[in-house]
């Protein structure tokens, strides 16, 4: 039996918007720690890992670990019926085949109830080790969103170079080239906009911009984003939330240094 209550409707809505752009269906793995999700995109080159820790819910109860197989488009349709200020309660029985969602609006005494059919999903879980990355860039999520959008107009892949001075995103396309460079600690006064770099070693990697742009659907979840990179391992793009995170992993493009 799972029962979890969220104080704001906007959070699950934003999460769903961020995840459903990458994957179709996924298991929500519920345990006493909280609710987690891990799934790869169709091409298996990107992975999203979501964690909502139990502290984020009030109350949270999960007697036994449960995997709730959900079609994300369907779930987002139901969540669209919730107001941003609604209190959302989700419930599932141990052997049930539905996920029930209740949206309560205290202001106008409105209660809406929905049931989403669950599905059996064979999921492949990848064990992701804690990695010490060569370079970790923390920056404004809006800035990252803008860079991906701007450079995506020019090319499909972006080269990211991190040095101790700053981080440079550069593209080469048919129409020409472009680059955006963010200098380290450019904005001390505005914490949200500062670019911070922890560097063990310079890195220079290529990534698909279409995928990065897809990840920026999570921008509303956090004002900050961190990009963690090491040579020839997947990039980690992380948006931290109050009680949890959404992490994207993306395989680098290898052999495209031109």
């Amino acid at each position, binding site marked *: 039996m799972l029962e979890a209550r969220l104080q704001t409707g906007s959070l699950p809505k934003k999460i769903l918007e961020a995840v459903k752009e990458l994957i179709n269906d996924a298991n929500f793995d519920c345990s006493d720690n909280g609710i987690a999700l891990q799934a790869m995109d169709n*091409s298996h080159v990107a992975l999203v890992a979501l964690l909502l820790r139990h502290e984020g819910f009030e109350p949270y109860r999960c007697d036994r670990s449960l995997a709730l197989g959900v079609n994300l488009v369907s779930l987002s349709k139901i969540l669209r019926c919730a107001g941003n200020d609604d209190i959302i309660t989700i419930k599932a029985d141990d052997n049930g085949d539905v996920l029930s969602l209740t949206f309560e609006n205290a202001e106008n005494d409105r209660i809406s109830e929905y049931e989403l059919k669950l599905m059996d999903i064979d999921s492949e*879980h990848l064990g992701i080790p804690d990695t010490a990355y060569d370079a970790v860039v923390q920056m404004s999520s809006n800035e990252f969103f803008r860079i991906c959008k701007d450079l995506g107009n020019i090319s499909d892949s972006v080269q990211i170079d991190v040095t101790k001075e700053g981080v440079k995103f550069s593209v080469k396309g048919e129409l020409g080239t472009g680059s955006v460079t963010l200098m380290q600690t450019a904005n001390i006064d505005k914490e949200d906009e500062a670019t911070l770099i922890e560097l063990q070693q310079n890195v220079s990697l*290529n990534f*698909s911009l*279409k995928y990065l742009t*897809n990840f920026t659907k999570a921008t509303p979840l956090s004002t900050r984003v961190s990009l963690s990179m090491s040579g020839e391992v*997947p990039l980690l793009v992380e948006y931290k939330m109050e009680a949890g995170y959404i992490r994207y992993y993306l*395989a680098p493009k290898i052999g*495209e240094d031109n």
Partner: protein
Amino acid sequence: MVATNQQRICIGPEVPQDSKNPVTMLLPHPSSGFPSRYVIQEGQLYEMQLVDSEGLRSWFIRDTVQSDGSLYIITPIDPLFMCIPILDIVRQRTSESEGLFLGLQDIFESDQYTSLRNLVELDKLDQHLALVCDVRESDSGGGGGSGKRKTFRLDNHRTLTWLKRKVQVLADKFSSIPVLVDSIDYTESLHEICQTEAITQSALRLVSAYLSESWAKQLAAEYQFPELEKLESRIQLPTLLDFGKRSATDMDEDSKPKEIKKPKMSAGQRKLAKASTTGMKPLSSFFAKKSA
């Protein structure tokens, strides 16, 4: 055609009160060659179609029940569709010769279908035939100027021109006939050229339903549908069946069939499907699989 005590339900043309009884007859169908029923009334040719009740339905007619629940539909048909296969045979065209010129009586003389000669009675048949035939006029002989004897020989070029004109007429009227509009798989969002091509293609199919295989082939060769072909090769409209399917397609597979199998993808996923993943290794080559 039927015993007088038998009545049938029929949708047919309006007939003036004083008109003669219609002539009904079996003639070879222009496409299949199987005998089908046709009607001549007031010099016009009609084809008769039957919605067979298969003995399962009956009609209520006022206070009575009629056990035969079939519906007969009688609709006008251009006599040339009937004539083309006949003319095609009787001209006896060979590789050396364009074939024979024949008079009306000779054309519609058949041992197998004696009722063919009824076609001679059709209004302005000679004018119709002139649309698809070479015509020769000769004095009917015997002086007195009683008229000229006309002989006909089917001409391939004229026939194709006439058939193309038929397709065009149908295509022009297409949008005014709702059942036809519904019959083609195009949506409003399609490119205008595609729509036009889809309409022409559909009109072509309708006309070809009244042609023998060889004529249908010749006619089809006159048309090209480049935009439609492009469209079909690029996308296939997902059918209802596809919506039930979910599959775990692997990265290695061609991206095109994958798009078809995954109609439920969100906008973001559709964009990703177009992303080039060359040089990108699957994540499972970086992270070890864990048993779930």
